[in-house]
């Protein structure tokens, strides 16, 4: 068994050295495509942060002053619910202080100044309103009605800050997903072609191996291992790239004035690590698939 494992690694390494230019091309293509996949995830997460308060088609947010009493909150709740033909009562949500604080943690992830000002006690609570109408004028008149209620601190309308970002997010999502898919296919094809070339270079050896009774798996495994390594090394490079990119982005965002909203685009480092692990897994899988197909396809001697 040990002899077989040693053999597989020795052959993989030898083939790696023999096909250096093709190997480099396959590895770099995997790295670039995986980096794009990773960037897609980070950009999406940034937009999600920005849009978190508008999740679930929320169109209007009523902020209650931090010192509002339960009676004040109940009163506003009653006013909102008194218009069931305009407001979707089933989807009406009230975020109390802990819930609002948790949301702020995500929203202001990249804005430590803002976060330090907020505490679970001083944070405004909020009503999230889903409207049954898309009529902008009606929504604005609704907002004007709520604004004058006691202890209402402010009103924010989705269309004021949400729609541009939402459209931009959709566009960026589509472009990056399509590009990363195309590049992933290119990477798999390049790995496939590299393995095919490696097998062609060693066709005489493979022929002898088959004639002396080597099993197909014995012949295949070093090639599959080689493809898997192409993907994995590409994955490692893309992780390094993603890490650098994220660092540069965080540095750039820190330069913006607090409270501009750009800070929401900063992604927590735990999420970045998760994306990196995913990239390594996708890389290894793409490599194994590309080389697996090649190794099965060209083994008939």
């Amino acid at each position, binding site marked *: 068994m040990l002899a077989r494992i040693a053999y597989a690694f020795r052959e993989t390494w030898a083939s790696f050295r023999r096909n250096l230019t093709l190997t480099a091309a396959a590895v770099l293509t995997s790295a670039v495509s995986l980096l794009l996949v990773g960037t897609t995830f980070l950009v999406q997460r940034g937009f999600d942060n920005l849009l978190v308060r508008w999740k679930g088609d929320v169109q209007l947010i009523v902020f209650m002053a931090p010192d509002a009493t339960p009676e004040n909150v109940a009163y506003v709740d009653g006013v909102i619910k008194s218009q069931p033909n305009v407001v979707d009562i089933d989807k009406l949500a009230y975020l109390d202080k802990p819930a609002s604080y948790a949301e702020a943690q995500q929203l202001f992830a990249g804005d430590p100044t803002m976060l330090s000002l907020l505490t679970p006690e001083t944070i405004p609570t909020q009503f999230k309103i889903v409207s049954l109408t898309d009529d902008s004028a009606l929504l604005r008149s609704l907002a004007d009605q709520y604004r004058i209620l006691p202890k209402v601190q402010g009103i924010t309308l989705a269309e004021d800050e949400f729609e541009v970002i939402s459209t931009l997010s959709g566009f960026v999502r589509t472009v990056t997903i399509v590009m990363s898919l195309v590049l992933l296919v290119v990477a798999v094809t390049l790995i496939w072609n590299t393995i095919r070339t490696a097998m062609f270079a060693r066709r005489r050896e493979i022929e002898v191996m088959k*004639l002396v009774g080597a099993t197909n798996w014995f012949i295949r495994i070093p090639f599959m291992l080689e493809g898997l390594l192409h993907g994995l090394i590409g994955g490692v490079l893309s992780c390094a790239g993603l890490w650098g990119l994220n660092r540069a982005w965080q540095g750039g965002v820190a330069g913006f004035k607090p409270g501009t909203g750009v800070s929401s685009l900063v992604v927590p480092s735990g999420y970045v690590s998760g994306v990196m692990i995913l990239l390594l897994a996708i890389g290894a899988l793409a490599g194994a698939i590309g080389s697996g197909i090649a190794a099965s396809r060209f083994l008939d001697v």
Partner: protein
Amino acid sequence: MIRLDNVTKVYGAETVAVRDVSFDIAKGDFMFLVGPSGSGKSTLLRLMSRQERPERGDVWIAGKNVNEMPDSRVPYLRRSMGNVFQDYKLLSNKTVFENIAFALEVIGKPRHVINQQVPAVLELVGLAGKEDRFPDQLSGGEQQRVSIARAFVNRPLILLADEPTGNLDPATGEGIMQLLEAINRSGTTVVMATHDHRIVNLMRKRVVQLDRGVLVRDQERGVYE
């Protein structure tokens, strides 16, 4: 040991390589397959090692029908037979020792077995002391000896040789035949395809003659004609 029952092999739509061929080879036999180029000799050898499958008929090796054998069993069938070719099929980037060791390595033999069996087989084929040479540093006859050593190192039941003397001068060819005869005397069944009249007439072994894929003669202690 080897039995062919009404075997027919067709290439493409209508090129009949072998037509309705039947014969038996007993354990320990030495048999020549003779006939002009294109008569189907190599095809028969390829059918025996399951590199090809017949359109009709059955090929039996050591009691097993190789046509019905699942692909996963074919490597194990091939471990019971050695193959020798006219062009040697040696790996030019490996030394003599490594070429032979390779055959054991790929079937998972441990290193200590390889270190013991390779020198022994090199001694048998008369190449002791040349284990570190590369194939292109050897004569044609020596290269063929390496090829035979590789085929025999695993002590197979059967040795299939396809024109093993085809590229060699008569004297060297005779040396190779002596080696194959010695291997045969150790109990290995040998099937050799050739159109070398001189060697067939010299050896006086069983001769099966093919003509355009049809078996036209099966003779004990035969000559080429």
